[in-house]
């Protein structure tokens, strides 16, 4: 059977590394570099904190960094959205929960079943390596297409959102509704939960007894007596 020797992105090691990194020298490149490094650093910090509060804070920082990056990609509406929704709403939620369950952790990583999980991570790395093999072009990419000035603004994205992609919008709104109901139901206290179930059972039993629809189905025992009277 063919043996496997996948070498990703063979071209990275090639002579053309220098011209790949050239654009970073420009002013725009520097901005990208700072933001990128910031985002990476903050996310690593987030993942490695023992104290959940600092983890949340570093995640918020990451989101701000990302918002900046969106701006460099002239995705202005999204940058604002990132800050507003992610950093603002979702992280606030996280902070609430962190306050409720604020408990220092003894160990960062539990050792139960670690081999499978490590293998999972390596699988992730392998996949990324294969995709990177495609994403990174052999030679320096050409110039990016010019953009209309309204690209990425609220108007144009909103226009596309409500005209061509109305259905996904409605669908996601429904999803949010379900999430809200779910959240409420799941976090109700256990004791109220069991009371509700008992009440429901009682109601069903009463309705069944009152209906007396057909004696035959009540139980096996009676049937045999019914059968004895069977026809001749």
């Amino acid at each position: 059977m063919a043996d496997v020797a996948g070498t990703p992105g063979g071209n990275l090691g090639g002579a053309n590394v220098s011209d790949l990194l050239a654009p970073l020298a420009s002013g725009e490149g520097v901005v990208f570099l700072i933001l990128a490094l910031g985002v990476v650093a903050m996310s690593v910090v987030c993942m490695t904190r023992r104290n959940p509060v600092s983890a949340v804070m570093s995640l918020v920082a990451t989101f701000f960094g990302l918002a900046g990056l969106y701006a460099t990609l002239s995705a202005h509406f999204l940058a604002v959205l990132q800050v507003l929704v992610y950093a603002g709403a979702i992280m606030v939620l996280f902070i609430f929960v962190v306050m409720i369950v604020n408990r220092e952790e003894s160990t960062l990583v539990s050792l139960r079943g670690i081999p499978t999980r490590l293998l999972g991570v390596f699988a992730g790395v392998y996949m990324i390596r294969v995709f990177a093999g495609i994403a990174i072009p052999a030679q320096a990419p050409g110039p990016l297409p010019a953009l209309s000035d309204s690209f990425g603004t609220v108007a144009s994205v909103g226009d596309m959102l409500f005209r061509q992609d109305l259905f996904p919008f409605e669908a996601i709104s429904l999803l949010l509704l379900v999430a809200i109901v779910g959240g409420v139901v799941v976090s109700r206290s256990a004791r109220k939960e069991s009371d509700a179930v008992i009440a429901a059972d009682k109601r069903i039993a009463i309705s069944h007894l009152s209906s007396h629809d057909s004696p035959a189905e009540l139980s096996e025992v009676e049937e045999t007596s019914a059968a004895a009277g069977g026809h001749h």
Partner: protein
Amino acid sequence: MNASETLFNLRLIPLLPFLGAAVLILFGRRWKREAVLTVAAAAIGGSALVAFDAFFTRLPAVAEEGGLRDVVWTWMSTGNLSVDLAFRMDALSGLLCLIITFIGFLIHLYSAGYMEHDPDYPRFFAYLNLFCGSMLVLVLGDSMPVMFVGWEGVGLCSYLLIGFWYHETPNADAGKKAFITNRIGDFGFLIGIFLTFQATGTLRFSEITSFATAGSVLTAPAWLGMSNAFWIGTFLFIGAAGKSAQIPLYVWLPDAMAGPTPVSALIHAATMVTAGVYMVARMHAVYVLSPAALAIVALVGAATALFAAVIGFAQNDFKKVLAYSTVSQLGFMFAGVGTANFASGVFHLYTHAFFKAGLFLCAGSIMHAMSGSGDIRKMGGLRKLTPWTHGVFLVCWLAICGVPVFSGFFSKDAIVAGAFATGIFGDDLSWVGPTVGVLLLLAALGTAFYMSRLYFLVFSGPTRADAQTQHHIHESPPSMVGPLVVLAVGAGLGGLVGVPGGLFGHPEWNLLGHTLETAVGPELDVPHNTELLFMAVSTVLALIGIGLAYTFYGGGYRAPAQKFAAAFPGFVQLVRDKFRVDELYGAVIIRPLRKFALALFRVVDRVLIDQILVGGVAALVDVLGRVSRAFQAGDAQRYMAAFAIGAAALVFFATRPTVPSTLKVEVSGTTVSVDASRAGRASPRGLTYAFDFDDDGRPEVVGLKSDARYTYDQAGEHTIRVTVTDPRWHTQSKIKRKIDLSAAGERK
């Protein structure tokens, strides 16, 4: 089919009794006794008239051309097998029809008296009619399957009639035993039918006979060196042995005495049991072709004759003695037909029907008189008390013993003489004739002895019955005595019909022999003096037998009888217990079969299939379920990791460039051309192929083409490596192939 077989509605003969039976079954229960009797008697009487008319007026004209034929409809016809529901009467079947209908009619009258106060009166006559119908179908059957219908029909009727008083379990058991033993015989009969069909391609008797006389196919060796005719004869004889109670399948007949006496008289003396003899006579053309088969028939017949006679010595039940006597006389008949002396075999069947039916009916009337008990030890001195029965018994007794002038004498003597004089067995089997003859003579002596014992114990000397039964011993009513007398006349004078030709030098006197000639071939010509010799010998033997019986049992148990019984108690008891043959069968066949079946049921059916196979599969599924459950550790993160690994594996295999499992290599001399494409299809995405022929790591040929050629400088072992690279996914697959460029030439 002989061209000129005249059509005559023979179907009436069996149809009338069937109609009678149907009417009685459906409506009999509500009618009065007289009405039932009239319907039954009318049915059998009508059939008798038609039979007599057909036999005496219609048959003689067409006897030579194969007798009267009547086709009702085509019963079964598929492929090359076609069986018609057809009847045929020639001399042989005509004679038997006469016997069945005539004696049947007499017994119907007799049973009116005998069964008078039996609650199931109509059911009895229904069965009797059903029996007569089936027997007539058997006799008149034009082809073997039709005969088989009658064959099994009479088996069924004997089952019903033996078990007539079904409320006693022994009767029911006797009935079942009879049916199953018959069924074993029918198994042999069926195989015989298949063999005949395979050998001759037809099942009609006339065709079989013409085929046998002309054909050589039947004598061709078919299996184990024996000829077709032999196998047909042997298997058919198994059927006959089952039906006509020969060794080893005779055990059911003595038990069949559990049925009412008229049944024993009609079925187990006169008609059904002779079916085997009729069948052998009917297939005489096939039997003649195989002396070995005939030898088997004759020897078994003779052996049964002697064996049954010996058992008869010690039986204490009136009907049991007669039952063994029937088995023995049947042995005589089979010895007769076995020595190709078909005419005399049938002749003895004819005379036996009369005197044995007579004896049984006498037994019936005596048991009637003795209020049901048949134990001869309690009888005695009935000569004066039941004069008429005594008179009939006397005639029949002398007939069966073979005293001259009486019918038994002629027929028995013809068989014995025939046994000695027959030439059918050729040279290597020539000893069979005389052995059969000697056995028959001993059997004749035995017959004379046990019949005389019976006569003296029942009729002579003081009555040993207790006072109460003695008080109302009375002669049977005329309705019973009438048929008795008729049978006595038949028994007495019946023999004159078939006086053996050799006796008085006038072969034409043998009326029976002549009429049967067309059906069963010419009468065996026995030289004049051997005939005379054996006539004398058998007469002497008869008288010795009677004398001996007189010394032992004249007027009750005399001194010699007690002395003998005291001297050999074990032997006497053994003979009385019928040599414990039933127990032998039980131990050897029936119980082991039941045990084997039970074991088979428990082991194979329940355990092997149900538990192991079915249960096993269920258990397997359960185990599989349990094992796979172990992987579900319940840890959400591990599931996600597994998910990631799965995705990675998918990506890995999806991106491999497709490569054939083996390289196709064509070698010509030292140049090698290699094709790495997958089953001839071009590679979809422009893969690059790198061929490294000399295994030095540097590919010699690189390009988009999936095949390449290379010329090696010297022969010997080489390894070809091909590396296929997918430019888009930057993935590679390698194949390597070892080839041997031996000078011997191409190796794929």
